[in-house]
C-alpha cells in the first residue's frame, strides 16, 4: 500500500489498528518527495526527520505554505528578499498543530508573497501540476495543492486572499477550504492583504478538511480580527444528505469564457446533489462583474503597505548599490527592494502605492471599499433565499506554464469566481467534480454564510460520498523533466 497517497483519516485508522507507524508514513512521504519533487517542485524545504509525541492525537505530518512562520525554519514567502530569514516564532496555527501532535513535513512553494494564480512567480521556480506537468498547479498555494495531489503530502495548509487555496485545489483535484474571515488566526501568516487573508486546509477529501479545521480554527488573542465564535466539531457536519437544503446558482457566474467542460461538470454536480435532496434556485449577485476590479485595488493597496517592512534594515536581503545615488540609506532601500522583489511583486506594490497616493485615494481605494460593501450585500441578500451558493471554482481547467505570465489582467481574471468570497469574508470550498477530456481536474465551489463552514462540509461530503472523484490519483513519472 502507498501510505503517502492515503488520506489522513485512513492513516489514523491504520495507526489505530497498528498496521503502520508514524515513521513509516514519514519515510513513504520522503520517498515520494525524492521521486517526484524534481518534477513537481512542490517543496521549498523539508524536515529531515519528524517525530510525533507518543500520545499525539493526530500524528499525521502536514505540509505548510512558505508564508506561515515556523520557529527555527527559514520562512521566505518564496521571495529572494526573505532568503536566509529564520523565523524566531511559530504562527498560531503551527502552535495548534504542535499541540495536536502533528509533525511538520515541509514548506511548500508558492507565488512570491502569494501574488499570483499559477505558482510561477516563486524565486524557487514554478511548481508543476501533477496531472499534467506542462500545466500550472494554480496558485498561490500551488505547492500545497500539488504536493497533496502528487502524494508528496498527506494534507497541507495554504492561504487564500482571492482564491489562492480554492483555485489550485480545483486545478489539482483536491479539496480546498477558505474559512470565514476571522475563523482561523492570521498571527504568523505573512500578510498579503490583511483584510482578505485566511489560512485553510488543502486535503485529499472532505473528511480530512474537517479534521484539520477542528485543529486550526478558533479565537486567538494575538489576532484582533479573530472572531470569538465557538468552534463546532466539524466532523459532525459530515452528513451524507442534503434534504431540506436550498442551494443558489448565481446567474452572473455563467459568463462568456467559462469552458463547456467546466459547465458540464457543474451540471453533473447539481444533479448529484438534487438526487440527495437539495433544492436548487437561481440567485443574483449583480455586482459580480466588479469583484476583480475591487480586489485589484484593495489587495495591492494593503500589500504595498504590508511589504514595506522588507527594507533590508533588519532581516533577509540587503543590497547596497556600487554607485551612490541619493543617500546611503535610501540607496540601500531601493536597491534591496529592486533586487529582492520579482516582477509581479513590484507590479502589485506599484499599483497599491498608486491607488493610495495623494489625489487618487478617493477615486480608487475609497471607491473600492464602497463597491466591496455592494458585493457583500449581494451575498447577504442571496443568503436570505438559500443555504449555500454553488459556482464553478474557475472558468477553465489548469492553463499552460507561461501562458498568462505576461498578461496580468488575464491572469487576474482566472480568480473571477473566488475573489468575491474574500471580499465578503464568507467561507468557500472547492471540491473535485470531474476531469476534462485532456485529464485535468475540475472543481466546483460552494459558499455559505459567515461561520457556516458546517454547511460546506455537509454539501461537499454528500457530493463526495456519491461520486468517486476524490479517489483519483495522478500517475506521475519518477525523476526530473
Amino acid at each position, binding site marked *: 500500500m502507498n501510505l503517502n497517497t492515503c488520506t489522513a483519516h485512513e492513516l489514523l485508522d491504520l495507526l489505530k489498528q497498528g498496521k503502520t507507524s508514524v515513521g513509516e508514513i514519514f519515510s513513504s512521504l520522503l520517498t515520494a518527495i525524492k521521486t517526484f519533487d524534481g518534477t513537481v517542485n512542490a517543496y521549498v524545504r523539508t524536515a529531515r526527520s519528524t517525530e510525533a509525541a507518543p500520545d499525539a492525537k493526530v500524528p499525521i505530518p502536514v505540509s505548510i505554505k512558505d508564508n506561515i512562520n515556523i520557529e527555527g525554519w527559514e520562512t521566505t514567502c518564496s521571495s529572494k528578499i526573505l532568503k536566509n530569514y529564520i523565523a524566531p516564532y511559530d504562527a498560531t496555527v503551527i502552535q495548534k498543530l504542535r499541540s495536536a501532535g502533528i509533525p511538520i513535513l515541509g514548506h511548500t512553494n508558492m507565488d512570491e508573497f502569494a501574488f499570483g494564480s499559477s505558482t510561477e512567480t516563486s524565486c524557487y521556480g514554478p511548481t508543476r501540476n501533477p496531472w499534467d506537468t506542462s500545466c500550472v498547479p494554480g496558485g498561490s498555494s500551488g505547492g500545497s495543492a500539488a504536493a497533496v495531489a502528487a502524494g508528496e503530502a498527506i494534507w497541507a495548509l495554504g492561504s487564500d486572499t482571492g482564491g489562492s487555496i480554492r483555485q489550485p485545489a480545483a486545478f489539482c483535484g483536491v479539496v480546498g477550504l477558505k474559512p470565514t474571515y476571522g475563523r482561523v488566526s492570521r498571527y504568523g501568516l505573512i500578510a498579503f492583504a490583511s483584510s482578505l487573508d485566511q489560512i485553510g486546509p488543502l486535503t485529499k477529501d472532505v473528511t480530512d478538511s474537517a479534521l484539520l479545521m477542528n485543529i486550526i480554527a478558533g479565537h486567538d488573542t494575538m489576532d484582533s480580527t479573530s472572531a470569538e465564535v465557538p468552534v463546532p466539531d466539524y466532523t459532525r457536519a459530515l452528513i451524507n444528505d442534503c434534504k431540506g437544503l436550498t442551494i443558489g446558482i448565481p446567474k452572473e457566474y455563467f459568463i462568456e469564457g467559462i469552458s463547456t467542460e467546466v459547465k458540464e461538470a457543474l451540471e453533473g454536480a447539481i444533479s448529484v446533489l438534487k438526487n440527495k435532496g437539495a433544492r436548487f434556485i437561481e440567485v443574483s449577485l449583480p455586482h459580480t462583474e466588479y469583484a476583480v476590479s475591487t480586489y485589484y485595488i484593495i489587495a495591492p493597496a494593503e500589500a504595498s503597505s504590508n511589504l514595506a517592512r522588507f527594507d533590508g534594515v533588519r532581516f533577509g536581503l540587503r543590497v*547596497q548599490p556600487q554607485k551612490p545615488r541619493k543617500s546611503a540609506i535610501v540607496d540601500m532601500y531601493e536597491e534591496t527592494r529592486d533586487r529582492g522583489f520579482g516582477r509581479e511583486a513590484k507590479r502589485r506594490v*506599484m499599483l497599491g502605492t498608486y491607488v493610495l497616493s495623494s489625489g487618487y485615494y478617493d477615486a480608487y481605494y475609497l471607491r473600492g471599499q464602497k463597491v466591496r460593501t455592494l458585493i457583500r450585500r449581494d451575498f447577504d441578500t442571496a443568503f436570505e433565499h438559500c443555504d449555500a451558493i454553488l459556482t464553478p471554482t474557475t472558468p477553465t481547467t489548469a492553463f499552460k506554464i507561461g501562458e498568462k505570465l505576461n498578461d496580468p489582467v488575464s491572469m487576474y481574471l482566472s480568480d473571477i469566481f473566488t475573489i468575491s468570497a474574500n471580499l465578503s469574508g464568507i467561507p468557500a470550498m472547492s471540491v473535485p467534480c470531474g476531469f476534462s477530456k485532456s485529464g485535468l481536474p475540475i472543481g466546483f465551489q460552494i459558499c455559505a454564510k459567515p461561520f457556516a463552514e458546517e454547511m460546506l462540509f455537509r454539501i461537499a461530503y454528500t457530493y463526495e460520498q456519491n461520486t468517486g472523484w476524490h479517489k483519483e490519483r495522478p500517475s506521475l513519472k519518477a525523476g526530473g523533466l
Partner: protein
Amino acid sequence: MITNTDLQYISALARMSLAEEELKPMAEDLSSILDYIAQLQKLDVTDIKPTSHVLPLKNVYRDDSIKPSLTQEKALSFAISKAKGAFKVPQIVDN
C-alpha cells in the same frame, strides 16, 4: 495613462528603483490594469459606506500586563548586520 513622471513618483514612494528597461513594461502593465479597474467609475456609490472590515468586530483589546520579550541575542539572531546590541544600518545624516 501612466506617465514616466507617475512611475518615478510612485517608485520613489515605494522605495523601489526601477531599472530603465523595467519602466516601459511596468507602465504598460499598470495602464492595462488601471484601464480594467476604471469600470468601477460607472457605478453610483453615493451614500454607500466603505467596508474596511468584513466582520462586525469592535473593541478588541488586551490587558496591560507584561509578557516576556525576546533576549537581545534572539532579537538580533536574524539581523543582517549588528553591533553593540543594535541593528546596524548605513549612516543616516540629518544635520
